[in-house]
């Protein structure tokens, strides 16, 4: 069963919600919002996300719950259904989509009002109706064949129909007969639509056309019925009367003269009206669109005319709304523009491109987005990351109106700027010094014992692990910390000596400032994880503040070397694992970041990147974006030179400016 269903805005206000459990936890949906929408850890469905159905959005799993969601971009709405992961609810996508259509249809204009969060909605009935209906469908589905279920997807189950000639007949009664097309499965519940092939198209035209098929006799009959409220009903043509009865089975409170008689018959004739329905449906396939339009008009009229909806009417109203939405969609996709019309719109489009106020479509954007993608690739952004960014921008911009005197290019530029900024901005503050302080001198209230802060550095060969480690060390020494440098590169000859040189240099440099640095080394050939573990215990005994662990460089696609990292992470349990990546690397950066991020076992991942050699690439700093894109791990430092002091925090503004600057 469904746990809860919520409709909320992007500004965070819940417009409508329904919960079936006693304590629905808001943190589940909060985590959906922060992971999917804000941090974009799981990518939304590719392509155009505007009209995307819930089925195309990947379900979000969190703590035994599965969340199905869909969004309406221009109104800033999110629809979320939460259910237990154990359950398999096949109809949930359909529910989310239908609810979306209904809600937007009913309250769309209210949502567009500025400066308010209030939406007057009495949505309960609509939701209940949908839920009941889809659950029934699902129950039925189990007994039906698989192919029927596929067809059912497309079929709005029932529709108000067969009213072409009735309103004059019954002026007082607005109940729209729910012409359930359950000709075959007459005994099943009245909400149950049949999944027969002919039901794959909306039922409305069938009902409508059936009366037409019955010929003039049908309409004449109805008039006769109105005029002479007597036993005439059964006297005429048997089949047509029974057909009528079958169609209007669900109508309640209709003042039919021959009430009992008709009701009795209603079950029997269903059998032989079925082929009739099937043939009529096939015959009039072309006229379908026209018929649909007609019904739309009527349902709208009846909706505004009434204040409240009883259940039966609601059912029909819902169906007609869903059907009209479907019809609109098919119209908009199939709308062929004449030569004159298209040329006028083309001229208008050009004009608007200059003046602004143009509503962007995929076609407008395609070329400019391609250009932007090329630009990003030139900036050394990996193709994968560039495509993701461009798709994000496209998704954001389709359907958006450009501002006054704003060209499409300028709009894309600003959108790209904001999405670059979003991807590079860290989720939480990255103040290393405060984190070290919190660990090395914990406040007396928080029952934590003093311990050294452990930082380890990993990366591919030759990217500058040792150099950046000594840069960090220099920075820490300037802030008067006691630092222990651990040489865990027990593999490459000369690695330990290299670190020793760095340490002796740093000692000299910072002797006056009050920092203290030592080297911990156990020579070559030892197990790195054990060395690290011993070093940490040594640091605890000696009262060091920070432990910096240098590791051996390893190729990220060498499984043998990478597997030792997991042991290393558990033995040394570093507070921060930083990966050094060089700015020079191109497309490979994504794979590097991914593999290193996954190498530390299930519970551990990277904590940050150091992007080295940023001074050597000019403004081609795309590696920053590629690596963050691949892992959602923030960039902690950038290396900008050869000296110990050439380490910088990442300034997002600086990076974005470099990435978007057009001079080569």
């Amino acid at each position, binding site marked *: 069963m469904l746990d809860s269903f919520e409709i909320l805005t992007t500004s*965070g206000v819940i417009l409508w919600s329904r919960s079936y459990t006693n304590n629905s936890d808001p943190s589940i949906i909060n985590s959906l919002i922060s992971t999917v929408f804000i941090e974009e850890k799981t990518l939304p469905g590719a392509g155009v996300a505007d009209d995307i159905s819930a089925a195309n959005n990947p379900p979000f799993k969190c703590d035994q719950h599965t969340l199905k969601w869909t969004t309406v971009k221009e109104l800033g709405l999110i629809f979320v259904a939460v259910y237990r992961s154990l359950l398999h609810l096949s109809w949930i996508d359909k529910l989310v989509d239908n609810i979306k259509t209904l809600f937007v249809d009913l309250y769309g204009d209210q949502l567009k009002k500025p400066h308010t969060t209030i939406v007057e909605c009495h949505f309960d009935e609509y939701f209940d109706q949908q839920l009941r209906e889809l659950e029934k469908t699902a129950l039925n589905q189990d007994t039906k064949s698989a192919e029927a279920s596929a067809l059912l997807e497309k079929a709005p189950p029932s529709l108000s129909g067969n009213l072409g000639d009735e309103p004059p007949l019954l002026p007082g009664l607005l109940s729209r007969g729910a012409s359930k097309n359950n000709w075959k499965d007459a005994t099943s519940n009245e909400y149950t639509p049949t999944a027969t092939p002919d039901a794959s198209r909306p039922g409305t035209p069938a009902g409508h056309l059936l009366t037409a098929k019955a010929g003039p006799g049908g309409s004449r009959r109805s008039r006769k019925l109105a005029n002479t409220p007597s036993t005439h009903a059964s006297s005429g043509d048997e089949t047509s009367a029974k057909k009528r009865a079958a169609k209007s089975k669900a109508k309640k409170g209709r003042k039919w003269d021959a009430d009992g008689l008709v009701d009795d018959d209603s079950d029997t004739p269903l059998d032989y009206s079925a082929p009739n329905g099937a043939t009529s449906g096939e015959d009039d396939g072309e006229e379908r669109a026209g018929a649909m339009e007609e019904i739309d008009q009527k349902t709208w009229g009846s909706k505004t005319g009434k204040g409240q909806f009883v259940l039966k009417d609601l059912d029909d109203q819902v169906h007609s709304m869903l059907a009209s939405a479907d019809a609109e969609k098919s119209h908009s996709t199939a709308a062929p523009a004449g030569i004159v019309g298209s040329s006028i719109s083309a001229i208008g489009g050009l004009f608007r491109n200059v003046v602004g106020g143009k509503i962007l479509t995929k076609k407008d954007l395609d070329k400019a987005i391609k250009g932007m993608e090329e630009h990003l690739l030139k900036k050394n952004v990996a193709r994968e990351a560039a495509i993701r960014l461009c798709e994000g921008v496209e998704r954001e911009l389709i359907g958006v109106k450009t501002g006054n005197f704003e060209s499409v290019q300028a709009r894309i530029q600003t959108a790209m700027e904001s999405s670059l900024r979003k991807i590079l901005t860290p989720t939480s503050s990255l*103040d290393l010094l405060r984190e070290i302080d919190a660990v090395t001198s914990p406040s007396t*209230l928080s029952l934590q014992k003093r311990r050294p802060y452990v930082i380890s550095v990993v990366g591919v060969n030759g990217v500058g692990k040792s150099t950046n480690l000594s840069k960090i060390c220099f920075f820490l020494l300037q802030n008067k910390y006691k630092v222990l440098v651990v040489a865990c590169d027990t593999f490459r000859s000369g690695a330990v000596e290299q670190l020793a040189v760095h340490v002796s240099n740093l000692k000299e440099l910072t002797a006056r400032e009050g920092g203290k640095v030592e080297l911990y080394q156990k020579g070559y050939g030892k197990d790195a994880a054990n060395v690290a573990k011993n070093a940490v215990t040594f640091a605890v005994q000696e009262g060091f503040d920070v432990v910096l662990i240098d590791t051996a460089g390893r190729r990220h696609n060498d499984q043998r070397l990478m597997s030792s990292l997991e042991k290393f992470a558990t033995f040394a349990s570093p507070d921060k694992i930083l990966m050094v990546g060089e700015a020079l690397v191109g497309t490979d950066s994504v794979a590097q970041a991914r593999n290193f991020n996954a190498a530390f076992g299930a519970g551990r991942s990277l904590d940050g990147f150091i992007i080295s050699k940023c001074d050597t690439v000019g403004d081609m700093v795309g590696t920053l974006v590629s690596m963050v894109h691949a892992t959602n791990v923030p960039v902690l430092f950038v290396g*900008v030179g050869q000296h110990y002091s050439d380490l910088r925090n990442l300034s997002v503004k*600086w990076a974005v400016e470099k990435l978007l600057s057009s001079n080569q």
Partner: protein
Amino acid sequence: MASQDWIQHLLNPSPLQLTIAILLCITIPIFLHTSVFNKSGLTTLPSILLVGPSGSGKTSLLTQFERGTAASTHTSQAPIAVECSLPVSSTAGSDKYRSIHDPTHSIHKKFLLVDTPGHGKLRHYALDTITSPQNLRGIIFLVDAATLSAGDEGLRQTADYLHDILLLLQKRSESKTGAKALKEIPVLVAANKMDLFTALPAALVKSSLENEITKVRRSRSKGLLDSGIGMDEGDDEKDDWLGEMGSKEFKFKQMEEFDVVVEVEIGNCLCDEIFY
């Protein structure tokens, strides 16, 4: 002399030309008026900005102001501005000298409450609003009083954000030119969720925030430079020290020098009363 004829014909007072001229004379000003004045709007309402870390209750407070009861909310992703009106009993500061019998007394009480997302990646909305404000009258900084105990991650995040906001305000007042004096912007630190058992009282909220901001200030001054600085010239040395230069401890009082009044009040969104 065909050309002369033509000119003569052109300059002749004909009824058609006359009507066209009159029509143009009448419609152009109307057209200009509608096109220009619709855009700018008459006056922007005074606005109050809601900032604070994620989950501190900004959107909840917003709905409380708008509807009278707090709606249930989730994490915000987009800012929203809502038109609210002051309670009937209270008088706006701008109406202080107005007689209560003044008919305009009952209007001018509307204001915009601007909610911003508090998530780390989305704070630029709030910072942008402060740097380019439209009739910004005040900032409410909401904190979750239950997460402010010492050594808590929540306290660090909150202090970080508050430090950024105050620094921005300080820079704004420092950069102001003599000709165009900016209005002072008071900051209200509203300690939310006082109904929770672990919530700190107002005095403690204030002192722990001040202590933590002191730490933030110190580590920021010692931290590394941003990558932009030093690489491209032109970025002059920025002074990022919040509050009184060289002071050991940060106090909210130090901000008064920069026309920023900071007050700490407590309350919770669940009860009807909000402290002003």
